[in-house]
């Protein structure tokens, strides 16, 4: 016998609910713990360096004007292209004068040693990063240990983060960077045309238990890297002893690169 109108509607309704539910196999699969979870230390590598909050202290008074060791080391380690055209330039860590780094603190009668001082600047890995807030795709995000990361896979090159960053720490690849890389380092990817890049606090090295390239390259030990939440860390020992300032702290981004001059 053909179903009545009432029976037909009941069956149709139940079927619609059933179709909207995820398949049972998927529900079961989610509940079983995945077996490929993290095991400490990859085979043959040192344990990763971890921190509650990574930070850097830059003692610029130790920097000499002609030294570019940290910049060279960083740019070599990360396949950063050396593009001469300033409109297309890409940089992770670069030298600036005091008046450009600390514009509000700069004035006409500042002491000459400070005025002429070359200061290495990089991404501040802010605690309250405006770049992360504006990124429409989640390509840039803040890790639990404070590192502000770039996921180039998700970057659509919209440049909103470029405008949001008050420190100019981000660069976009207006041209294909490959031809401008002096020496390709095979174990670190390059970037491609149309993605943003910036300093990553050497997260790929920290994962292998190695300190950032710039820190190790500096012979004057002007760059110090560590856990700012750990009172015994090198970073805290320096901050406890010396007066330090941060770039444009009044903006409330809570930068985590501290400068000593």
């Amino acid at each position, binding site marked *: 016998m053909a179903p009545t109108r009432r029976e037909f509607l009941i069956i149709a309704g139940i079927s619609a609910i059933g179709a909207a539910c995820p398949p049972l196999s998927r529900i079961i699969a989610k509940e079983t713990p995945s077996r490929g979870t*993290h095991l400490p230390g990859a085979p043959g590598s040192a344990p990763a360096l971890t921190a509650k909050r990574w930070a850097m202290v830059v003692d610029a008074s130790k920097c000499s004007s002609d030294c570019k060791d940290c910049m060279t080391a960083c740019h070599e380690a990360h396949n950063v292209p050396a593009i001469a055209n300033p409109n297309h330039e890409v940089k992770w860590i670069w030298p600036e004068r005091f008046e450009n780094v600390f514009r509000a603190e700069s004035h006409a009668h500042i002491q000459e040693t400070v005025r002429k001082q070359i200061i290495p600047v990089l991404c501040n890995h802010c605690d309250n990063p405006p770049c992360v807030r504006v990124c429409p795709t989640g390509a840039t995000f803040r890790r639990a240990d404070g590192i502000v*990361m770039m996921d180039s*896979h998700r970057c659509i090159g919209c440049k909103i983060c470029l405008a949001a960053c008050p420190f100019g720490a981000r660069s976009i690849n207006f041209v294909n960077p490959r031809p401008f890389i002096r020496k*390709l380092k*095979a174990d670190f990817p390059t970037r491609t045309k149309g993605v943003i890049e910036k300093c990553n606090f050497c997260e790929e090295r920290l994962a292998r238990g190695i300190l950032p390239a710039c820190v190790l390259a500096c012979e004057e030990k002007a760059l110090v890297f560590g856990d700012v939440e750990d009172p015994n860390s090198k970073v805290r020992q320096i901050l406890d002893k010396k007066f330090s300032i941060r770039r444009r702290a009044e903006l409330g981004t809570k930068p985590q690169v501290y400068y000593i001059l």
Partner: protein
Amino acid sequence: MKLYNRGIIIAGIVVFLAAVTFPFWYDRGKTIAPPAIELDTPAIQKLADKRCVEDTAFMRDNHMKLLASWRESVVRKNVHTYTSKDGRVFEMGLTGSCLKCHENKSRFCDRCHDYAGVKPNCWNCHINPEEVL
């Protein structure tokens, strides 16, 4: 019923149908050999146990999904090691792991990708070891 411009219309229909069905009849009867991928790189020959991260059938079907999940793990979750179904531990990475054994991208990755007509954009950024050497 009278059809005006009959010759032109029918000729047009024939040409149109021939063009539209071109991909279907052009390759008929021809057999294209499936890609032969090379697995005998020096790094693989050195291995005592010639097994990939997972078994061959799984890798053939799911390497792209595996790589996508590795990418998420390493970049976004800061998890760098992968435990295979049989309990072996690997470091996750395209150039760091996969290409350490499969160092012949042009005779491994590309052969299948060209055959299947897929163009993965991995190599826009990740470095093909063949190019560096």
